């Protein structure tokens, strides 16, 4: 083995270890952050859940509401999944210091054929992904598509979206540089559908040394790009490529209109209604129940998984009747705020060792009262989400906190509650009026 090979193996191992340690720490952190949430009701009906995951996450079932965009997204997605096959050989080459170890070690015609077919497929998919990426960049930066231009997308979220797209271009370019230079070095081998044609004609005039160098730049560029992507993922909105799977699996199966009954309230009412407990002295050791959600720890882990699964596409906000008519509420912002607040709280706990920083998700800094009040509970956001995120569930929990913990309610709603509590009606009519509709 030549010294240059040994250096490359060591560099590869170092890079891999570094990438895995750095990203691993961050992924463990995300798991811990999600675990800050309360327990979630159990997940019955596993078969339906697997089906949902296959149809909606793997099969992108809900993307097809908008066919052209769904096809563009599908190109990037399939290319991403399929390229992982090539990554196997890149890894094997990196660890052993070899060149196309699979291709060179199995010398049978059927395997060579299969190999060429796979790499050619990856090339075609990569080209489609590249085209799609340019469309996406144009849609995001040149066209004025409302959901990409909302207030919550200003600054980092907009840059983040572009960084991912630019990175996609780097990754694809490196793959083509690697294959193209290799094909120019071995014009009679491989037969890759794009590189074996374009490589020799575009790069054929370069010297053998230059081509070797270009191949290495492509190879190292691609694998480094993959590692950078792996580390960048948990800092970006792009985690949905992983979390869409658990998120669709654990999404609630009941009708969208079914908002769960708050168990702590049911218990309180039971105690009130039971003559044995209603007048008994309160148990001083009993935990005082809290109602609704004010901060991260009050939400369930599924709400928090939802927040990390959000890729900020804005299909929810695009369908939200409150947002469409100019109100401050944006379901996407609720999810982004939940994630940002979760990160802030986790960082505070880590640095200070204390439980709570005195801030909360339900606040002017994050989700404000005005935003929460504008929701019509119409479920358009829930229906629109391609990865089954439920912003409404978080909104309802925070509305509960406003009313039940903070007594923060508009006057008109107080009148409504009084009516329901005192006249058993949504308006203050006497029960004796209930049959007036029969009179003419």
């Amino acid at each position, binding site marked *: 083995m030549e010294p240059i090979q040994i250096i490359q193996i060591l560099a590869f191992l170092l890079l891999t270890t570094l990438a895995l340690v750095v990203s691993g720490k961050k992924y463990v952190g995300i798991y811990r952050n999600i675990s800050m949430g309360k327990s979630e009701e159990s997940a019955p009906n596993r078969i339906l859940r697997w089906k949902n995951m296959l149809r909606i996450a793997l099969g992108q079932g809900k993307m097809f*509401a908008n066919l052209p965009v769904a096809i563009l997204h599908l190109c990037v997605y399939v290319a991403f999944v399929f390229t992982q096959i090539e990554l196997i050989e890149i890894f094997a080459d990196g660890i052993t210091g070899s060149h196309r170890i699979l291709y060179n070690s199995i010398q049978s015609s059927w395997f060579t054929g299969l190999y060429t077919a796979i790499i050619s497929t990856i090339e075609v998919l990569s080209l489609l992904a590249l085209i799609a990426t340019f469309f996406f960049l144009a849609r995001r930066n040149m066209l004025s598509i409302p959901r990409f231009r909302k207030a919550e997308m200003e600054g980092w979220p907009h840059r983040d979206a572009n960084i991912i797209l630019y990175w996609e271009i780097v990754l694809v370019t490196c793959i083509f540089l690697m294959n193209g230079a290799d094909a120019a070095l071995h014009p009679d081998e491989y037969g890759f559908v794009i590189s074996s044609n374009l490589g020799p004609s575009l790069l054929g005039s370069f010297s053998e040394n230059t081509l070797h160098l270009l191949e290495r730049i492509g190879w190292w560029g691609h694998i480094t790009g993959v590692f950078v992507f792996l580390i960048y993922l948990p800092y970006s909105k792009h985690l949905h490529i992983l979390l869409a799977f658990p998120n669709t699996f654990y999404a609630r199966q*009941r*009708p*969208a*209109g*079914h*908002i769960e*009954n*708050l168990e702590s*309230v*049911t218990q309180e*009412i039971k105690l009130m209604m039971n003559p044995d407990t209603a007048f008994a002295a309160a148990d001083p050791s009993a935990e005082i129940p809290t*109602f*609704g959600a004010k901060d991260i720890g009050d939400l369930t882990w599924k709400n928090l998984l939802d927040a990390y699964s959000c890729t900020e596409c804005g299909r929810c906000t695009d*369908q939200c*009747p*409150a947002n*469409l*008519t*100019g*109100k*401050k*509420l944006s379901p996407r912002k609720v999810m982004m705020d939940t994630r940002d607040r979760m990160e802030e709280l986790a960082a505070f706990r880590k640095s200070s060792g204390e439980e709570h920083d005195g801030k909360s998700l339900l606040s002017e800094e994050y989700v404000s009262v*005005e935003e929460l*009040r*504008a*929701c*019509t509970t*119409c*479920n*358009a956001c*829930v*229906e629109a989400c391609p990865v089954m995120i439920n912003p409404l569930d978080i909104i*309802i929990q*925070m*509305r*509960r906190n406003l*009313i*039940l913990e903070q007594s923060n309610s*508009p006057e*008109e*709603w107080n009148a*409504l*509650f009084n*009516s*329901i*509590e005192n006249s*058993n*009606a*949504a*308006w203050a*009519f006497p*029960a004796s*009026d*209930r*049959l*007036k*509709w*029969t009179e*003419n």
Partner: protein
Amino acid sequence: MDLQVKTIAQLTAEGQSVDVLFWVGCAGSFDDRAKKITRAFAKILQHCEVNFAVLGTEEGCTGDPAKRAGNEFAFQMAAHMNIEILNGYGVKNIVTTCPHCFNILKNEYPGLGGSYDVVHHTTFLQNLINEGRVKLTDADVFKGRRITYHDSCYLGRANGIYEAPREVLAQLDTELVEMKSCKSKGLCCGAGGAQMWKEDEPGKERINTRRSREMADTKADIVAANCPFCITMLRDGVSKQNLEGEMHVFDLAELVAAGQGIQDINLD
């Protein structure tokens, strides 16, 4: 003419059983426009000889607006009282003309001890038509009219019922035109989530104003709806578009009753 509708208390006292309870809801009981829907549906039930009763003075708010506003306590107290009454009468089947009552009775009452077979009146009407019990002998009153259908959130997205009301409308002699946002993408009327009971948050326009533009674009003569709250909002939208007299908002029950010839309808 007054409608002769029995309460479940009366029928129980007379020793008679009831097949289905008609849950009228607060809007259907107290709102003048919604009362007409209640009457239309009761007339259909009577005409089809359905053995039904109402709770009358014993009915209480289901607690839906309280729950959606965040007041789980007021909701569960209301539910508790209603469930005691419903279970006391041994009610098994419920039909209601309000999708909010339908949703909460069907989905959220079981967890508090109130399990019933709950259907919304659009599904009930579809079944009556399929069984041949509703005959639309006078459907030609709709001849040549364009009709559009507004999906309420609580029947549509909340419970996945998009086809039953459309199948009912298909029985009328009309042309059904869909709005830009329909079915699972249907645009809310703006009343849900207890918005009906308070002023809007600051914004560019009201939600029903936006919806009314979609309604106006269909150039329909009739907007069919299935929810008393939507109907309030949509009628308001019609007047915002200055389409009074040209575009009429009706509940499906009113259209069916007119098609049966048991209730007059004013389309002018």
